[in-house]
């Protein structure tokens, strides 16, 4: 099959010197993800640095944060990552129905993740966990006063600061992903504008979505489990 006969928008521009053999949008997304790695490095790295250098021990895992709910959330995000890649596999074979189903499931999974996070945040704030630490007079503040070691009372300010910033920005990225996917779903997926030869949008948003999942995998481990 000569290149002239293959009509695919998903190829590098031609005629041009050989780049990295991927089309512009995809390369652009990869480059963007490289910058996102550095952004999360700043946030997560600061957490690691602050924790290593902290003058006191942090709260034991599971005492302040709700592990079962978050573990479920982790699973949910991983599932949505799988459905995303199944959506991509579907359209790469021209399967519109499969695309619609899997892509829709991904959006639902993502939205559910955000929902659970919002629930988690409101729950934590109500119990007294804030970015600045334990709120005076709250339930958590009292628990911490009774068991300062278990609840990492002296260092609660840093705990709150790092927790909310890291998970908050991750949640922000997930939300942007859900909104983008919803936009694509309504304007391109449902009307059947993606084809076997041109489904760049699916692949590109998929890359973003997997990245967001990847960051969460790291975050879940080092924020909730350690």
């Amino acid at each position, binding site marked *: 099959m000569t290149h002239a006969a293959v009509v695919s928008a998903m190829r590098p521009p031609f005629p041009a010197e050989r780049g990295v053999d991927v089309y512009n949008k995809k390369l652009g997304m990869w480059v963007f993800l490289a910058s996102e790695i550095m952004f999360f490095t700043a946030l997560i790295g600061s957490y690691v640095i602050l924790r290593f250098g902290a003058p006191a021990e942090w709260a034991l895992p599971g005492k302040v944060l709700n*592990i079962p709910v978050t573990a479920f959330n982790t699973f949910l995000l991983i599932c949505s990552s799988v459905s995303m890649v199944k959506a991509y596999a579907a359209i790469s074979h021209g399967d519109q129905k499969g695309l619609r189903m899997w892509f829709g499931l991904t959006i639902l999974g993502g939205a559910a993740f955000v929902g659970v996070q919002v629930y988690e945040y409101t729950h934590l704030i109500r119990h007294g966990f804030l970015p600045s630490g334990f709120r005076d007079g709250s339930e958590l503040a009292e628990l911490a006063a009774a068991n300062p070691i278990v609840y990492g009372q002296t260092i609660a300010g840093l705990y709150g600061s790092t927790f909310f910033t890291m998970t908050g920005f991750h949640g922000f990225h997930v939300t942007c992903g859900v909104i983008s996917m919803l936009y694509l779903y309504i304007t391109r997926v449902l009307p059947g504008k993606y084809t076997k030869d041109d489904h760049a949008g699916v692949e590109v948003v998929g890359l973003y979505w997997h990245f967001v999942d990847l960051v969460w995998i790291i975050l879940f481990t080092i924020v909730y489990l350690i």
Partner: protein
Amino acid sequence: MDTAHKHPNYILIWVYLAVLTALELGLAFELPISRNLKLVLLMFLAIWKALLVAMYFMHLKFEKWNLRILFIIPLPLAAILILAVITEHIW
């Protein structure tokens, strides 16, 4: 990348991820081992999961080496920043 490449078995990867997550939870709460060892093992598991997502879901395993480099370059930089600043404290 276009339509011709083979798709790996995504469901299988999903199973691996689920198993690894379960392992992590068990490790974090059940096993009576030292904190430092726990830390190392948990990080190892997390990185393994992250690699699975990167290599299979993001198809890095099937892309050209120079695209992989793009993703890899920030990692040593991140490591340098974190390690250098941590050593700051150990003196």
